[in-house]
């Protein structure tokens, strides 16, 4: 599984949080909440394309 670290987008990720975070600038409230919701929704996009490949 060594290749995982080298890839731009690891499993479960389409648009990495680090990339999105730069666009948002300083988060005035709960940054962890913003990160979690971003990642949860981003994972749905990931599921979509890999399920298209594997299941459909």
């Amino acid at each position, binding site marked *: *599984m060594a*290749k995982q670290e080298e*890839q*731009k987008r690891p499993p479960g*990720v389409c648009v990495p949080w680090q990339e999105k975070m730069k666009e948002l600038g300083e988060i005035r409230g709960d940054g962890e909440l913003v990160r979690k919701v971003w990642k949860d929704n981003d994972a749905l*996009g990931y599921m*979509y394309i890999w399920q*298209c490949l594997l*299941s*459909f």
Partner: protein
Amino acid sequence: MAKDAETLYGERLKRYTTAMRNGKPDMIPIRPFVAEFTAKYAGYNCQQVTQDYNMAFEAAVKCAADFDWDAVVANMVYVWAGITQAAGLKYYAVPGVDLDVDTGFQYREPPEGKAFMQPDEYDALIADPTGFLFNVWLPRVSTDAVAPGETNTFRNNMSFLKGGMAMMNYFTAFGPQIARLKNECGTVSAIAGILKAPLDILGDKLRGYIGLCMDLLERPDKVLAACEALMPHLTSVALSGADPDKNVPVGLWMHRGCVPFVSHEHFERIYWPTLKPIIQEINKAGHQVLFYAEGNWNHHLDSFAELADGSIVYHVDNADIFEVHKKLGDKFCLSGGVPNYLLGYGTEDEVRQVCRKIIDGVAKDGGYIMDASAIVQNDAKVENIRAMTEFTREYGVY
């Protein structure tokens, strides 16, 4: 007095899981992978169960209610055409659209020159598999999706919106369907999660079989690197759909990674080293894997025997199940072995004879689940499926 669904479910879950751990339950579990057969039995045609998943779910429930089966797949006609049409996927021939209403859906592999991934695109796939799928693969396999840099279209936007919403709609319907099987029929949902081997994915959906064979000769290192790049993603997808209760296995659908589709050398150097660690990772998380060994994988039984005892359930399709049992029977539960041609064209007595032979030969000490060789489609006779079920119940008691 007939048992209630809750009692039946408890007994069946215990029976099924005991056998899958290679133990000896009270009787041989029955877990037929019934697909279009469910439509035939419940009075639907292939178009109906492929295009309307509610009809497919109804058909699965009707079969589970009427046959004494321990476990079934919640919908074995898994490819719901609602999703493939919303996303514009063009590689399926759909009953009622491209095929007559009584023919099951078919996968159409493109000719070599029109493969969904070209031989000079390995580096792009390896560097960013998810990006490659979205930006390169999907626009090629879809009638509607547009690649970045091309003029955007309304149909492109809608294909992502509708495809995503259709998938969510479908996946969220499985929870209630599994609950119906449990509560109305006392039947266990047989598998959870999906896995395919990296080399099979390359052959099936990216390079095509002929393209992959050329690559194995001309650029084997690229093929290996691509398989390695797919590994963490395939592991992640498999684990994301696995049974949280760790009762039922992740399904591994094995296609063309065996001799004679590929050479022994390519199996040993690429197929197995990029699949085995995925299996071990899934095992480490507490899940078994069901090897659905389509075709004949008996050239590779020694490799499969490298896996830990009880880590997989090994389903036998066209291979000699007695040879499989000799090599793997001490380590893993086996399933299948009843030829589909017999279920379609044989007599009830012939079905009973084959079931008896399999039970006598491989099920004596437990660790066996009754099933057809391959997925059961609408060519199987109802009376033959009934004969397989009833004979196993009568003769398969320990």
